[in-house]
């Protein structure tokens, strides 16, 4: 018996939508062994995960809360990826967005009209991330420096900045040694909806996804970005300004991650603290490529992963499964989804007989 992968000449019809559900199913089957190993009834555990994530409107709202920064970070990595630029620095850009936005709330909000505070914070968040994204962008466009390394290293710089600020000059004087800034003034808090923690950030994320889709598919600039990503020589040949486009795309990519930062700060934490840099920027890389650089898919995958994270927390609490198990399950799902995507381009043939 032999297993052969054949490249598909035409894209898969409707059944391509079944690839991700099928992959999750495979991962769930693998997970059964995992739970049996720690002597937990796997079906009980799965039901708990599902209930934890989707069992009630409130639980689902928590999933959306979790998905909000993931959507923005996924989009951040995606727009750069469209031009074949690897923005590994979404984490740092997120932090700088949070810092810039919080700075506006802490120090400038008393001096501006109340209704201007939140728009100013969003703008500051975007710009904070943009500037951080522009550094690797400039180095790449001007000197050909590899953006993977520079953007990654800037993550650490950003996190150290954040720590310096909340341990040092911006530390809450009334915080009794708690590492963090003072609570942001109420008028800078993002509105929340329906009595849940779902906040303005979700709307920002969904709007960004829609906007990016429209820009990439229907504008000349979006087209130029896609050409540059698909064939850089053709882009040069067609006299596209690649240097300028690299700079712009990094401004947008960084800005989107920066928005994730300000959304987390002003929507959830209400202060700068350690919890801002928890790896959303890195998960964004996974989401962008799992979503095949498509905005719609990125939103869906963010919600899926958010569900898994929230559900995983629930099992941990309710049936005392070690937290490592829910991480391992997360890993299994990612692995299967990624592996399953092979079938989008290839079909599987099993042959019996000779050799």
């Amino acid at each position, binding site marked *: 018996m*032999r297993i052969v992968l054949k490249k598909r*000449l*035409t894209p898969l019809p409707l059944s391509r939508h079944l690839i991700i559900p099928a992959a999750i199913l495979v991962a769930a089957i693998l997970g059964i062994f995992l739970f049996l190993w720690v002597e937990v009834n796997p079906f009980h555990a799965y039901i708990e995960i599902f209930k934890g994530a989707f069992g009630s409107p409130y639980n689902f709202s928590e999933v959306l809360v979790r998905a909000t920064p993931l959507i923005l970070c996924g989009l951040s990595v995606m727009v750069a990826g469209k031009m074949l630029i690897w923005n590994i620095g979404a984490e740092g850009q997120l932090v700088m967005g949070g810092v810039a936005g919080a700075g506006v709330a802490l120090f400038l909000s008393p001096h501006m009209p109340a209704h201007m505070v939140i728009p100013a914070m969003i703008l500051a968040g975007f710009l904070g991330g943009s500037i951080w994204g522009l550094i690797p962008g400039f180095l790449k466009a001007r000197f050909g420096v590899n953006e993977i390394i520079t953007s990654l290293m800037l993550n650490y710089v950003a996190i150290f900045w954040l720590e310096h600020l909340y341990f040092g000059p911006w530390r809450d004087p009334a915080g009794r040694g708690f590492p963090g800034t003072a609570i942001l003034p109420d008028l800078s808090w993002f509105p929340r909806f329906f009595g849940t923690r779902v906040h303005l950030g979700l709307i920002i994320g969904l709007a960004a996804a829609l906007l990016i889709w429209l820009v990439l598919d*229907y*504008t*000349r*600039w979006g*087209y*130029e970005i*896609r*050409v540059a990503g*698909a*064939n850089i*020589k*053709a882009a*040069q*040949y*067609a*006299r596209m300004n690649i240097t300028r486009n690299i700079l712009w795309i990094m401004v947008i990519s960084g800005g989107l991650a920066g928005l994730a930062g300000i959304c987390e700060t002003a929507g959830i934490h209400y202060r700068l603290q350690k919890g801002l840099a928890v790896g959303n920027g890195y998960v964004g890389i996974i989401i962008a490529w799992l979503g095949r650089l498509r905005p719609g898919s990125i939103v869906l995958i963010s919600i899926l992963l958010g569900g898994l994270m929230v559900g995983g927390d629930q099992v941990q609490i309710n049936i005392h499964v070690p937290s490592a198990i829910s991480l391992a399950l997360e890993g299994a799902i990612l692995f299967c989804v990624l592996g399953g995507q092979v079938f989008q381009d290839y079909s599987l043939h099993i042959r019996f007989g*000779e*050799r």
Partner: protein
Amino acid sequence: MKGIVKNFQDVVANRGVDFRLLKSEIHSLLGENGAGKSTLMNILSGFYLPDEGEILINGEKVTFHSPRDALDHGIGMIHQHFQLVDNFTVAENIILGMPGPVALNIAAHERKVTELSERYGLAIDSRARIWELSVGEQQRVEILRMLFRKVNILIMDEPTSVLTPREIEQLFVIMMRIKEEGRSIVFITHKLDEVREISDYITVLRRGKVMSTIRPDKVREKDGVVSTELARMMVGREVILEIGKSSVKSDHTLLKVERLSVRGDRGGLAVNDVSFSLKFGEIFAILGVAGNGQKELIESIMNLRIKENGQILLEEKDIAEGLEKIAYIPEDRNGRGSVPDMSLLENFALTDRKHFSKGPYLRWKSLEDKAKSLISQYNITAPSLKMKAGQLSGGNLQKLILARELSQNPTLLIAEQPTRGLDIGATEEIWRELLRLRENCGILLVSGDIKEVLSLADKILVIFRGQVMDIISCEDEEGMERIGPLMAGVKDTR
């Protein structure tokens, strides 16, 4: 190979092909684009599995599941699109994928590669990186790679389409030497005269079927007769290779290049003190062996490369101001002239996008209308505008690029190897199109194909090592005689 059948979705590429290759022979495979030559050879070299039929080597049935299986049986193929890693050196590319100890003695391999290349007269620097080489030089690397693997059956997919007469002669010498060593060569081509010169056997394919297998020495009556006969078998109709051209007279100078010098990727002067001027209404050809500075010359005209010295004027203004008026058909259709992973519609937008913009938006709808009319006007075979450009055959892709560029009414057209790798039918269409267009603009033709240049050009500039050997008018019959030696760098033949 017996009764080979291969289908791709709805397209039948091979319908019951028998093919027999003897030891120590050069066997040519002739046919138009899409006749199934490449598919057949991809099956022989293990890239595809046949749907039906079998392959026998020395009477023994074999099944190849991968190119490596075929290589193990001594069968290697050189593709039309080279399979080289741009950032690797020549030696690294050659040993790539070969089994060997973990520790890599690159210096020893470089020596071996140099030895081998000297033995076959393939002058190549084993430490040069692929991107620094011209297309012609890259091909020599591919040949070396197969020789290095000691294949017994070497399949070459249109190896001559990028070469100039002198390089082709060298290639034929190499091919003869390989044959004398007891190895066999399958030579895929469209070029009839070459086939007669080199092959022991010729198999003609048409629409996936074998039309005939003949020995050229058996039908060698008059030179012309064989070619006409073969051409008729290939296309099923008479092909006229002579294209009528009338001279267009004009005194309006369009492009003026003065004392231009340009550095190559390795720092040396690739273009050295070149001057010429091109008049409105004429086809001005730059003829030379690949890698003699043509690439750098064109890139500097297109403002893609910084010039060292001299100036380039379009209608008496610096060319940088007039780039909009230039249409450019690059040598590398897939790598530069199109985006293979994007749809045909998106490829039509590539250089034409500015005319279809409304504010920030692209007017896809009106572009679609234009693309549709161009597709029918230029006879491009494409089922849908949504299909990817990479799925088009070479001839259709070239027609797409040509259609896109010509439809913008350029003042100056630069065409680089416009018919490289195309079959007779497509070549002829493109030649006619270029001649027709000449009435409205000037054309700078860069080619290594002497026949193409003689058929089309009003003036011929022969370039060698970045220098102008001579500029010859097409009326100068005595000058025509000197073209061959000039391309090889011999100036004085008297």
